């Protein structure tokens, strides 16, 4: 589904990603972990198509299409979704108006009929219940005046409504208390299915207690330093990211 090959990315001339290789298959959940500055958010942003990132080498294919040929809206319409670490506020635009506009854009792309206001409300109500969100959320301006936790939850609501093929969650767990974390995890787990894939970008292991990944990758200095299964995350938590650097350096030191 997602095939990343030798990806190099610079920001303002400074190399951030230095050769990422990653394959994500349908049905899989991957966790990308790493210390601050390791490049994990950059990876998420580049995949979604944010401006200001220069791809200097390598390629990314999504559903067999060259990802870098698609503008951000085409990626979204092709089923890619990025849950933002810092969701933006759009004053005066109601959540429900925005969600319906976005969903109908995706549905048009899929050749499905657009939903009218009544059908859309039906569609969204079930998702709200899943995330323990009040109906009132729908009528507030998009993220305006939302608390940090509400914004994150709203990202997951958008994801649930849009039903993407590939969801990338950029530090969705940061700033969430344990109850909110559980609710968010429930939303993500509900989306797991054999034809969807999820990439979790996170600093902490604790999210993975609630969303159990198939694969865990540890990013250090713009490369995937280690890959493994669930156990790797637990070991990381015990030993800290310094351990990765040590392992990484000792591996590099090998002849």
């Amino acid at each position, binding site marked *: 589904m997602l095939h990343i090959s030798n990806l190099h990315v610079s920001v303002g001339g400074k190399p951030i990603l230095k050769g990422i290789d990653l394959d994500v298959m349908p049905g899989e959940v991957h966790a990308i972990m790493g210390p601050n500055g390791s490049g994990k958010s950059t990876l998420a942003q580049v995949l979604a*198509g*944010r401006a200001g990132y220069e791809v200097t080498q390598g390629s990314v294919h999504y559903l067999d299409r060259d990802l870098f040929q698609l503008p951000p809206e085409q990626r*979204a319409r092709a089923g890619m979704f990025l849950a933002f670490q810092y969701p*933006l506020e*759009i004053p005066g635009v109601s959540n429900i108006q*925005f969600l319906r506009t976005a969903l109908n*854009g995706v549905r048009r792309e899929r050749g499905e009929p657009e939903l009218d206001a009544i059908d859309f409300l039906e569609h969204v109500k079930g998702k709200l219940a899943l995330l323990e969100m009040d109906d009132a959320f729908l009528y507030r301006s998009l993220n305006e005046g939302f608390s940090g936790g509400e914004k994150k939850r709203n990202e997951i609501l958008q994801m649930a409504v*849009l039903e993407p093929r590939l969801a990338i969650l950029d530090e969705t767990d940061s700033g969430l208390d344990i109850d909110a974390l559980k609710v968010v995890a429930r939303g993500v787990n509900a989306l797991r299915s054999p034809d969807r894939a999820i990439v979790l970008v996170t600093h902490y292991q604790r999210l993975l207690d609630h969303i159990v990944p198939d694969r865990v990758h540890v990013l250090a200095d713009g490369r995937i330093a280690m890959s493994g299964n669930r156990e790797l995350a637990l070991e990381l938590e015990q030993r800290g990211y310094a351990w990765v650097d040590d392992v990484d350096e000792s591996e590099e030191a090998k002849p």
Partner: protein
Amino acid sequence: MGNNDLQRRIDTPYRWGFVTDIEQETMPMGLDEEVIRRISARKDEPDFMLDWRLKAYRHWLTMKEPTWSSVHYPAIDYQAIRYFAAPKNAKRPKSLDEVDPELLATYDKLGIPLKEREALAGVAVDAVFDSVSVATTFKDKLMSMGVIFCPFSEAVQSYPDLVREYLGSVVPYTDNFFAALNAAVFSDGSFVYVPKGVRCPMELSTYFRINARDTGQFERTLIVADEGSYVSYLEGCTAPQRDENQLHAAVVELVALKDARIKYSTVQNWYPGDAEGRGGIYNFVTKRGECRGDNSHISWTQVETGSAITWKYPSCILRGDNSVGEFYSVALTNHHQQADTGTKMVHIGKNTRSTIVSKGISAGRGRNAYRGLVKMLKGAEGARNHSQCDSLLMSPDCAAHTFPYIEVKEPGATVEHEATTSRIGEDQLFYLRSRGLTEEDAVALIVNGFCKEVFKELPMEFAVEARKLLAVSLEGAVG
């Protein structure tokens, strides 16, 4: 999406820029007493009107064109303007069937099918073409309720007492340079009188169209809402695309008596000039309403997307106790457009209230200024004002300014002013695009959100038109 994409600008063609080929009766260029006498004679006016015009003209000669606003334009040669132009068919049509088909076709093309609007009850239209009202729909039905809705020139003939009583009572000819000029030469406009206790059953609207070359448009609208009445009035305007600038200096007077309410909405879409700033209308307009009676209420809502230069300050004189004045405005400037617009709220009566919501959007090299005066006179006990002025910047070369003037002579009055300036952010656009919205849709969504508080004040049909107009005016404008 790189910065280069963001910088690109598409010169959106002005969709209303065509010229109607119709036989015109015009007067020679220039202005003197003789021209004024001819205009008055042409309209068969009673003596009081001619006297008033001449007094206005003589006063105008003593005045200087104002220079205090932030707009810049080359000096206007007032002798190089024609002060009267009218479609040749001199007789006023009794019904739409008598109107020149070419004119009806023009309004169809503008999206104002007069016949259809007549058939679909709900909106009564007065269509003003150059200086003359060419058709007014629903007159008979309105008349059965005592509501007078007719061309100004007809009101002068049929209701001289009403005209005499109210004309110039809110905007006297001495008010300002452009108001004096208008009083001297105005040729037509709409007149509305809603009698005591009547709630006008439909929206009244006037569509102004400038067609003739080298011609100034000077129309005058007077709306009187008698005690306990209500009326909602809509105004729309367009002009052909021409390389030279054309002057539009209108006056609108509103009078709300005790317990009356007037809602006045404008979608102003005069030709704004091209992307390089050639041509476009100079829109120098005086609009003022007086809440003359207690508990009266006047609200102005305007969406300003057109004109090369906009200079207008729809205002409220809150004379009656407990009267309410409101001003909701969206002003958009793109390319080389300049707007200096805002309002004046003058609180005289006790417990008078006013609300000002101004949304300025600047794109391209547009310059947008909000200029507002809130005045609390001695005796306006318990008066309150709340002003909110927000600016949205869409390009690196545009500008937004806010000039609030506050004068408080009454210690028991409250004035609040809030202002914000924001730039449409690349981050916001990316966020929306990452959910599948195109860049254009994302811009439209952000701008509509920004203008929401104003749009919700517009009658439904007009709100849809306003949204479309903004989207068209902003195509490719993000930078």
